[in-house]
């Protein structure tokens, strides 16, 4: 098993005819992702990617004609929230939005719509989701992953890869890895992902990678203390970040007392999570926990 996506996911790519959409659709198909359709407004009726994938004007057409139930969004920031809302209203179950730079005003509205329609949104500003050897819905390098029993949740793209690499180096594979995104408002939170991994019978441990800014890691840790039976290794990036400065990600900014790396690491530890002080220790710590189980 796995969470969110698997080999049965029927994927529609929003923005499939753009350069990002083309490149990553090819990469995803190479990994084995079942892409059934693409959407680009005004290009309905075309076939793309060596004439194999039909393009529609609307997501609802892809749902009706190709039974798409999962979408991935590669459209520019001004139109990204619109694309999310379109997917949610068309009845898509899992929506991944890769786009970086979506205005927060657009996102708080889009998220309300997603909730009302019982869809699940991952992102925006994220590398996507990968269920190892089954479905890659994102821009991560699939070849670094190996199938196994560890779930990975991260706010950051390249830190997700770093964690996966370390896990593989100590002999631990993954079930599903999720880049949840670094924006202030994102579709699926760390807590939501933990809850999914807790239910997944194949996942035996989870790595969570957070950063400065917001309360998401704390909310997840407090939830885990009450509800999680599986061990968690946590890391928080930004121990050396100065307050009041946005560190790349729109959401990575220290504004109050509880959103510093130090405070988050302390609270994670208090909630029973094994905290890696150094990013280089994530893999080893998880290995030690798995060996003593």
């Amino acid at each position, binding site marked *: 098993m796995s969470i969110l996506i698997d080999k049965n996911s029927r994927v529609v790519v929003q923005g499939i005819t753009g350069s990002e959409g083309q490149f990553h659709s090819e990469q995803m198909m190479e990994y084995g992702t079942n892409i059934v359709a693409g959407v680009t407004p005004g290009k309905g009726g075309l076939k793309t990617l060596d004439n194999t994938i039909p393009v529609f004007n609307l997501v609802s057409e892809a749902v009706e004609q190709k039974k798409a139930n999962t979408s991935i969004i590669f459209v520019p920031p001004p139109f990204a929230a619109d694309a999310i809302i379109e997917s949610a209203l068309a009845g898509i179950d899992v929506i991944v939005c890769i786009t970086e730079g979506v205005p927060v005003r657009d996102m708080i509205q889009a998220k*309300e719509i997603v909730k009302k329609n019982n869809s699940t949104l991952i992102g925006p500003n994220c590398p996507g989701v990968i269920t190892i050897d089954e479905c890659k819905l994102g821009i991560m390098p699939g070849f670094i992953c190996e199938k196994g029993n560890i779930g990975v949740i991260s706010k950051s793209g390249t830190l997700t890869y770093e964690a996966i690499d370390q896990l593989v180096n100590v002999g631990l594979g993954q079930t599903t890895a999720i880049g949840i995104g670094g924006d202030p408002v994102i579709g699926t939170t760390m807590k939501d992902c933990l809850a999914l991994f807790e239910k997944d019978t194949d996942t035996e441990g989870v790595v969570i990678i957070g950063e400065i800014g917001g309360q998401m890691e704390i909310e997840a840790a407090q939830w885990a203390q009450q509800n999680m039976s599986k061990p968690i290794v946590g890391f928080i990036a930004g121990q050396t970040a100065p307050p009041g400065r946005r560190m790349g990600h729109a959401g990575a900014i220290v504004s109050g007392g509880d959103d510093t790396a130090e405070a988050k690491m302390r609270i994670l530890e208090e909630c029973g999570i094994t905290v890696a002080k150094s990013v*280089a220790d994530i893999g080893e710590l998880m290995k030690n926990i798995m060996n003593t189980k």
Partner: protein
Amino acid sequence: MKIHEYQGKVLFQKYGINTPKGIPAFSIKESTEAFKTLDTSPVVVKAQIHAGGRGKGGGVKLARTFQEVEKLANDILGMKLITPQTGTHGKEVQRLYIESGADIDQEFYAAITLDRNKEKDVFMVSTEGGVEIEKVAEETPEKIIKIWIDPLLGIKRFQASQLAYGLGLKNDAFKEAVSIFLKMYNCYLSTDASLLEVNPLVKTKDDHIVALDAKFNFDSNALFRQNEILKMRDLSEEDPYEVEASNFNLNYIKLDGNVGCMVNGAGLAMATMDIIKLAGGEPANFLDVGGTANAETVKNGFRIILADDNVKAVLINIFGGIVRCDRVANGVVQAVKELGLKVPVVVRLEGTNAKEAQVILKESGVSIIPAIGMKDAAEKVVAAAINNGDK
């Protein structure tokens, strides 16, 4: 992105929010002329910098005569204004705002910002205006009244009334406050602000509600549709290296350490700074080169990092996903050759085509210290920085 108070007040006037009459001034002469044009006394001479706490630092003063305005303008223009928010270096004052004084009866606080936990905008008011709101929040949180705004509905009149009742307002002042709160939210929404703060918002003795301050932050992701706001950007308030980096699509923040770093991805960049510190060094910067680390980006990255004389060694840490490590390696070799680098450079490349990259670095003949894994990289770069610093 931030703007100055006087620019915020232009926005307020556009959205129908009462402000005192005021005129921006860039020189002593413009200041005294503003005084004559306003034709009122007293006036307030206000330093315009992108930081709060200006009054405390001596950047906001009352003047009653032409001579007083002249003297204050002379004193404040060009001064290094130090406030709790500027850091110890302070900020040079280049602009003033000359504003009519107000006949204040009561001072309030009002602000709108995003509540990240609730994922809604929160509108806060308090009767404790004119003072540090952080202190009020800590000591007497019950004195802050909050309403949360449904993103699909927008602000409703009853919510604005709730805020005005909370301030104890009655009659005409109540009605005016309700109207101003609605306009404030409209202004916040229409400009894609991430913070709109008025401290103080006052009730005058003749029962009007007037904004004496205007502090804005804007969502930089939304600037593509906010041309009017973008025109208000004052680059002289920003770090020149950070501005230059942003021209190359690099995300750079200068820090005080001696180990420079160049990384792909914001999270990995922060983690790299952290591990440099753990290895006993101090990071000199945050630099995210993003998804396109080619020879040109690496070269520009080097230029910006090395413009800081404190830097004694540089760590390049790239986890190639879509970015191919062999291309990055070629970029590093080319940049090191062209720039004739004097500082030691430690390179850690992992991910797509990492093996090919190692070969390229090894065979290039340029003196690059290769590293395997982040711990190894951090230890090597810190040792190199210490070594270089001792020379």
